């Protein structure tokens, strides 16, 4: 420290002293104290970070799960089929299951039933059981 010689000769002459003492074993214990503080701080910071985050994370996760379930619900085979596939399927089913004879019988049966209904109405109207006086009152 030659530079002090000219600037501050008295200071230059002074012997340098370590004038501040520490408690006994201070430097033996300090590394352990620091490590303990680091560990407790890390535990605290994890706890402080986790709780408030969970308060928000749980409802948000719930909303996300519900939204995913809604938008990704399983689609049926019919919905997944293309238009062409559906047309082909219908054509095939019609060819296989459509029986014209059966249809004709069905139509005849239906007509007969409806004709029978008409006849029964006519019979009713022509029957003597109608009370003409009552009918007039109603009209």
């Amino acid at each position, binding site marked *: 420290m030659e530079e002090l010689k000219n600037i501050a000769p008295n*200071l230059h002459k002074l012997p340098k002293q370590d004038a501040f*003492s520490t408690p006994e074993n201070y430097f033996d214990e300090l590394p352990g104290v620091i490590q303990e503080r680091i560990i407790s701080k890390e535990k605290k910071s994890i706890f402080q970070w986790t709780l408030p985050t969970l308060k928000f994370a749980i409802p948000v996760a719930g909303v996300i799960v519900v939204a995913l379930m809604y938008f990704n619900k399983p689609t049926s085979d019919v919905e997944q089929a293309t238009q062409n596939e559906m047309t082909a399927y219908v054509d095939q089913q019609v060819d296989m299951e459509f029986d014209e004879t059966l249809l004709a019988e069905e139509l005849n049966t239906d007509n007969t039933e409806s004709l029978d209904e008409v006849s029964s109405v006519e019979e009713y109207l022509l029957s003597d059981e109608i009370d003409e006086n009552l009918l007039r009152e109603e009209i």
Partner: protein
Amino acid sequence: MAVHTDTELLQMFRSDNSSYAFNLLVRKYQKKIYAHVRRIVIDHDDANDVVQNIFIKVWKGLEKFNEDSELYTWIYRISINESLTFLKKKRTKFFIPIHNIEKEMSSKLDTDTSFTGDEIERKLQKALLTLPEKQRVVFNLRYYDEMPYEEMSKVLGTSVGALKASYHIAAKKVEESLLGH
């Protein structure tokens, strides 16, 4: 115990031995850092708090330390910042005007049983307390730690010329105080 180089400590820290390496790092630097902090804050309990906070910050920052600067330069920078922040907080906490905290520390030098220096050393420490904080830091780094100006420049982010000027002024003031002016 063998003293490891900073490079070795960093390599060890980045392998699986981070806690062990950090412990070695604390043991390597604790005395220097404590002495530096104690000269700034004077009281042992205050110095103890500040030193612990410094090493906790070192632990937190060590993972991201990119070796642009020397490890010890970086630790010194943290030490100075923490020490000055401590004094600033003390002033804000107790609403103490700037000169009173130095008066308080000066009185502490008279009563503190852990101050083991002689009368001239006490006078020197009291003279240092009359300097502006940053001038005091420059003086301590140069006079006690004998840090080269180039290193000081890296620690404090100030030019070598400005540091030389600052040390010159500080030394002159201390000399005058020692002579009783």
